[in-house]
């Protein structure tokens, strides 16, 4: 089993930044760990842009639940295969 299983299991609820072997960076709060994957609730970062008046409603001061949104509860966190993790760093709670 990946060494990251124990690390993630111990730190559920903590914000992390994970780099995977394909060079991608993923950031979020650890919600759950399975023997094969860690699931993050992503931390949104605004990309600007100009819409049509529609914007998905947020919770107050938070992302409002990436998975729970739309009533698909338990279905929507960001899964990362533990075997693809190249590096994991914990982030301070206040960084965003």
């Amino acid at each position, binding site marked *: 089993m990946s060494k990251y299983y124990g690390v993630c299991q111990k730190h559920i609820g903590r914000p992390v930044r994970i780099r995977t072997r394909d060079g991608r960076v993923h950031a979020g709060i650890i919600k759950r760990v399975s023997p094969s994957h860690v699931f993050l609730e992503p931390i949104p*970062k*605004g*990309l600007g842009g100009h*819409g049509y008046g529609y*914007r998905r409603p947020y919770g107050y001061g938070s992302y409002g639940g990436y998975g729970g949104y*739309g009533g698909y509860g338990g279905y929507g966190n*960001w899964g*990362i295969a533990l075997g693809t993790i190249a590096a994991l760093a914990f982030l301070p709670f206040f960084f965003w």
Partner: protein
Amino acid sequence: MTIIPTSNWLNDYLTMKNTSDRELIPRVHAECLCGPLEAYFPDATLQDIHIHLVDHGLFWPHPTDDKQIETFIARNYTSIVRKILEKLTQHWDGPDVPVFIFPSNEKNRLLSEHFEGVSGVSHPGKLFFFLPNNVSLKKLHALVIHEYSHICRLDKLGKKEEDLTLLDAIVLEGLAENAVRTLLGNEYVGSWAKHPSKQEVELFFRKWIKPCLDLKKTDPLHDQIMYGDGHFPKWLGYKVGYQLIASCLEHPELQLKQMHSLSSLQLLDYSMFAS
């Protein structure tokens, strides 16, 4: 006009989601639909792009969405969107930018009640449309006019996104919905942009907008004012922008195409809110 085909990406999503664990489907959704967009957002992660598009109306994955997506692919909105854009490009002498068309979130109540299920988001140099399977031709026109107006305004303004102010955003939105009014008719203007009383909009401007004209988009207050969060009236920035540009258009010498090139402060000076 360069419309980038998305049907292969959508087909990849349909294939991959049916062989993936249910809890990995959001990631599959992001990989298939936003992975090919990474080159268009060089400073963003795949996660950021995914959240950004979902926030602006991209459908959220669901185990039973196959039919919606298959119907969307069969609808082939590409040719009609291209036709509308080609007319607008000539009309406004606007730039050719890559355009992406995706299914919208048909399950979102806010989107279906206030926007007939359509949405879009424009960035300098790229344009995204989110469409349901039952969009009316007029509504599609209204959306394309609105978003392509943003592309023309951003192109002529030439500012970096991070330098845009609240006044720029209000003017941008006002130009877009007034373009809809001018080209299609008053009944196609989004209900969120209209307000029954001009006097009240004037009051909104003096009370909330005037002290914050220079606010940058990175300030949380910027979007609270634009969308009308908390104690602000709903779609405050959009409503003020609509009246601002409508009042500019009362000057017979001003036309939208020419207004794309004027600074936001110049347009404010032409408007009913000039001090």
